[in-house]
């Protein structure tokens, strides 16, 4: 194989897709940084604090999970547990069948992507309609999201207009305002017809059992205003200890993800609707999903469970900006995905063991992370695991000769002296595919081997 899998995908990416992914991630990242540093004296201290709060929460899930279960039940919600994707899907199906429900409207939830819920329900003859504009377009195109908060960052308006025309949502019109208005008109009647509204959860407070949901479009609110039954799919790592911790995390989430002080709608749900309220769910179910998370918790990469899915690490990542999200072949792309996706594969880890290698370890992902996850360290631990498990590594040049040279001082010195020859070698002609691919877009600087040692010797005198 000539390239690593992520490079292969990236090489085939259309130039305008690459340009639009690059532009929009870069601009969101820049706005994020400006906002945080304009408003807070020490934003990095806030990120560290948020990381400490979440780390505490995941290292005490044995205390907090029973606590949140008790709170939710006391608030009038029904609590379910799903060890696997199949079990989570089955739990949703059972709730719908028990109610005689046939139609679901869905707000955006990454867990539902992870367990492929919509396909499962459709297979069982039930309707499950995505309502987030981006996810709706992903669904009608039978595509996959390519960014955690911007699912259709890889599509342009012409493609979307063509899809809308094909689905009978009006004659071709690629004005983003018209596209949005058509979706508004189509979807609002779907909410009102639906039996069940499904959401995820951004946070769950163990103290109060409050589920916190953030959206900009208002689609999850519509699900909870129009339907009579609310199902929340929640990864077990979404717990935060107390309500007061929510203000730290909410202050960081919007700013990190989309450079907003707050997302437009921030909803705190602690049970079915109040008895006097005419609109909203009379029944609320919370399904806590494991699906590999306890294995991540048991691993030396448990810090990744702090993630609050803001997408800041995708926006800043030089690899994501070039490769876009589908290159990661996973629900979770970008730096967080390069850690989380292989781990969630459980015993099929080797299938995605290449992802942790698709990083220059520049550290930008750690610097922007609102919960300060040391992603580069975790990538290294996963590379190590791949090596220990003897996972084949296509597209990576063998390093044996290098190891031999670097461990023998005389060999090293000889290599430094001999390195000058490199200045005369036509790099592009060397028949090593990885080297040719590299040299295709770049040139080597002139060899200056040994200069540093010379400088050190002079300095020591």
């Amino acid at each position, binding site marked *: 194989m000539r390239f690593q899998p992520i490079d292969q995908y990236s090489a085939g990416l259309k130039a305008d897709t690459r340009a639009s992914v690059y532009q929009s991630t870069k601009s969101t990242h820049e706005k994020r940084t400006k906002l945080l540093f304009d408003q807070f004296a020490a934003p990095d201290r806030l990120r560290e604090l948020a990381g400490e709060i979440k780390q505490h929460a995941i290292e005490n899930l044995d205390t907090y999970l*029973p606590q949140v279960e008790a709170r939710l039940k006391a608030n009038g919600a029904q609590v379910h*547990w799903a060890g696997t994707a199949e079990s989570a899907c089955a739990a949703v199906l059972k709730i719908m069948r028990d109610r005689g429900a046939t139609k679901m409207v869905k707000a955006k939830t990454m867990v539902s992507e992870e367990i492929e819920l919509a396909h499962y329900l459709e297979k069982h003859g039930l309707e499950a309609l995505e309502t987030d504009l981006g996810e709706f377009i992903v669904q009608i195109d039978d595509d996959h999201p390519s960014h955690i908060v911007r699912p259709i960052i890889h599509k342009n308006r012409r493609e979307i207009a063509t899809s809308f025309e094909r689905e009978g949502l009006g004659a071709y019109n690629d004005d983003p305002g018209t596209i*949005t208005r058509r979706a508004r008109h189509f979807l609002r009647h779907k909410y009102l017809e639906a039996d069940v509204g499904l959401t995820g959860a951004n946070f769950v407070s163990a103290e109060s059992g409050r589920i916190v949901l953030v959206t900009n479009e208002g689609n999850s609110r519509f699900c909870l205003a129009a339907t009579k039954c609310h199902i929340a799919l929640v990864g077990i790592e979404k717990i935060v200890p107390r309500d007061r911790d929510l203000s730290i995390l909410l202050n960081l989430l919007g700013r990190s993800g989309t450079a907003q002080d707050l997302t437009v709608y921030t909803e705190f749900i602690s049970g079915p609707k109040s008895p006097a309220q005419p609109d*909203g769910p009379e029944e609320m179910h919370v399904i806590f999903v494991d699906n590999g998370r306890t294995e991540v918790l048991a691993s030396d990469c448990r810090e990744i469970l702090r993630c609050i899915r803001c997408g800041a690490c995708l926006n800043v990542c030089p690899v994501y900006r070039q490769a876009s999200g589908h290159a990661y072949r996973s629900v979770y792309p970008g730096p967080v995905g390069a850690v989380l996706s292989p781990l969630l594969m459980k015993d099929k880890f080797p299938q995605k063991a290449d992802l942790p290698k698709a990083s220059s370890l520049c550290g930008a992902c750690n610097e922007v992370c609102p919960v300060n996850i040391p992603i580069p360290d975790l990538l290294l631990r996963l590379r190590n695991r791949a090596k220990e498990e003897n996972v084949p590594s296509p597209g990576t040049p063998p390093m044996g000769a290098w190891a031999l040279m670097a461990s023998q001082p005389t060999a090293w010195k000889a290599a430094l002296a001999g390195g000058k020859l490199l200045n005369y070698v036509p790099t592009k002609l060397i028949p090593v595919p990885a080297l040719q691919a590299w040299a295709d877009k770049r040139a080597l600087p002139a060899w200056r081997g040994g200069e540093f040692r010379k400088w050190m010797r002079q300095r020591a005198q």
Partner: protein
Amino acid sequence: MTDDREAIFSRVRGALAPLRERAPLPQYDADMAVLRKMIAGRDLAELLAERMKRVSAHAYTSAAAVADFLKAGGWTRGYCDPALWPQLAPHFGAGFTVETDFDRKRVDDYAFGITRAAGAVAESGTIVLNDAATSRRLAALAPWVHIAVVERAAIFSDLTQAVAALGQDRNVIWVTGPSKTADVEGILIEGVHGPGVQIALIV
């Protein structure tokens, strides 16, 4: 399902057992996420109006001004919380058709909805709604224009205060500007599923 519960709990315990120590819950001053410089010395209603403008929402202090705004936009048919309408009706006058019951079968007939807010947050330009104050969740969401009636005394300075005051209501929602998306090519469009125009009437 009960099997899943036991299995998950036992895997969690198993995963955490080898940890020699657990990360402690950090102690911190909740004030550290508050934008003190922005809030200090400000009248909260004025700051709220200023911050709402920044998220392209509107704040008014007179019902007549809201009525003029609606009329200018051509939004003359709508819903109003029955408890609020007696005080607001004199400012609206003829030319408006206002219902105090919301019929979900005619969701598109209402160009505006007027409901009570539970409060507001000045720092972020946010309106706080809850089940107790909102006469109909749908009426505050489905019409193109939402007008939230906010009492001056119920304006919090910052989010940290607003979180501390979440209280016992089963559903609290913070609304910061009109519903929006940037899903299509990153271009900002307002009014996706919720209101395209968000107004606070501060009384």
